[in-house]
């Protein structure tokens, strides 16, 4: 192979992918950005003039403040509970023996292969007025009438934690694979208690995994559509379900597009900001 040819080869090989991305990713995203600066007349539809009113509306209307705040709080709580239950579960899984380890790892990660519609439907059935939770609470005499977690923050939160906790387990699991079990044994033989081993040996080494797991969970929760739409409904709107309604029900595409643009920018800022901050802080761990 000549030099020129070998220089061109990688570009020729990645060319088809790059071209299709230019057409199918860059162009539609730019068109969405342009759309978000268009005005909208209820009778006439999208108008060809440049306005910033959609962004002004998104940033100043208390209705949107509430929606953004709700989305943020719900995602932060989802990430918190995923850390709370996903980290110990990954640690326990890692200490299991051969057949069980594989079986329970599959059971935890398997739901990722099932559509989120199906997983959320399960919670909708459990949360309903005739659902398991309602029946149990009435049976225990804690409430006289049926109880429903549908259309509540708690309901959405439980379902989101269930949908996203596999990502936390996966992320912590990956960092546990790099942990040398000898370090734990050394600490114990030197007289450290189980708690000290956890705190001083295990936790510092899996912190990068916990952090990357929580940023993944946070980002996915903040942009989730199916779960908040099915459990929260119109009563508990989040950014994603609001943009959906603007597009497909109100038909106010420019406003929906500006919501989508704001969501995208916040998502990218949070992911890259978080990664950059912690990569610097934990650079020694990442290098090893």
């Amino acid at each position, binding site marked *: 192979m000549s030099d020129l040819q070998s220089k061109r080869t990688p570009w020729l*090989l990645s060319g088809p992918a790059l071209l299709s991305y230019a057409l199918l990713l860059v162009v539609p995203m730019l068109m969405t950005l342009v759309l978000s600066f268009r005005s909208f007349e209820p009778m006439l539809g999208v108008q060809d003039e440049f306005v910033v009113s959609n962004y002004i509306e998104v940033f100043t209307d208390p209705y949107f403040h509430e929606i953004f705040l709700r989305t943020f709080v719900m995602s932060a709580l989802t990430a918190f509970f995923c850390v709370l239950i996903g980290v110990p579960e990954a640690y326990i899984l890692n200490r299991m023996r051969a057949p069980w380890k594989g079986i329970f790892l*599959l059971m*935890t990660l398997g739901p990722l292969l099932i*559509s*989120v519609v199906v997983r959320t439907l399960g*919670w*909708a059935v459990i949360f309903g007025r005739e659902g398991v939770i309602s029946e149990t609470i009435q049976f225990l005499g804690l409430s006289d009438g049926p109880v429903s977690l549908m259309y509540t923050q708690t309901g959405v939160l439980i379902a989101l934690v269930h949908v996203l906790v596999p990502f936390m387990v996966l992320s912590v699991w990956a960092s546990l694979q790099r942990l040398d079990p000898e370090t734990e044994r050394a600490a114990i033989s030197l007289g450290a208690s189980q708690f000290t081993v956890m705190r001083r040996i295990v936790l510092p080494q899996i912190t990068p995994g916990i952090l990357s797991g929580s940023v993944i969970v946070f980002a996915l929760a903040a942009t989730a*559509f199916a779960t908040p739409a099915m459990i929260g409904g119109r009563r508990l709107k989040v950014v994603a379900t609001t943009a959906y309604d603007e597009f497909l029900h109100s038909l106010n595409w420019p406003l929906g597009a500006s919501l*989508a643009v704001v969501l995208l920018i916040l998502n990218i800022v949070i992911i890259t900001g978080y990664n950059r901050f912690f990569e610097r802080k934990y650079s020694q761990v990442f290098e090893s």
Partner: protein
Amino acid sequence: MMRNSPLALIFHALFSIFMVAPLVVVCLVAFTDKGYLSMPFDGASFRWFKEILERPEFIEAFWFSLELGVVSATLALALAIPAALAIGRWSFPGRGAINAFLLSPLMIPHLVLGVAFLRFFSELNINGTYLGLVLAHGLMIMPYALRLVLASTSGIDPTLEHAAQSLGASNWTTFKRITLPLLLPGIASGWVLAFITSFDELTMSVFLASPSTTTLPVRMYLHIEETIDPLVASVSAMLILMTLILMALLDKFFGLERLMVGKGH
């Protein structure tokens, strides 16, 4: 051998119940003989499974999703394999940027992809068409395919290719007889992950689907928006059963753990 304490095992049991509870409940409810959602303990039947056969919209949506997944996963792989070879086997200026660019759809919420494609396709007058859905799904699943193929390129020993060429094989023969077989596990698992991701996708497709191009998750979502009845539970139970069979097959052929690692972001 380190052992889990009894407390840890109790936690693990509760966690496991939490993970399977919604799936088990959906499967149980599907067997009710009542006309509304209820547990089948005071009367079980296959009534709602038979009902699926009376509802062509679910069956059509299933076949549509299946075909869409196969076509878009194949398209994504056709673009991902050469790109993965370029990124994995050559070092050239701009390589890191290309890699980041090709993986970038992972950072874009599906809602935003849905909005962007809706705008783009309606300008081109192909909104709600089969072509539109194939292109959108192909782009969305491409990073998953790329990542798994890329991971398998790093395992190839370049001396094998040099050996083939020094024995007189052409570039194409070397690729076909040496490189491609070595990449095959990555290609196969990349295809499967891309297919599953396409088959399960709701958020982007809900913007792009039309009555003649409705995927199964979209059909189920639109049904649930109106009413949650045992019919969607029985459709879900069928999907859970199919996923279990698929998982058993995948685990036998490539090891499911590897596939799952590709699913993480």
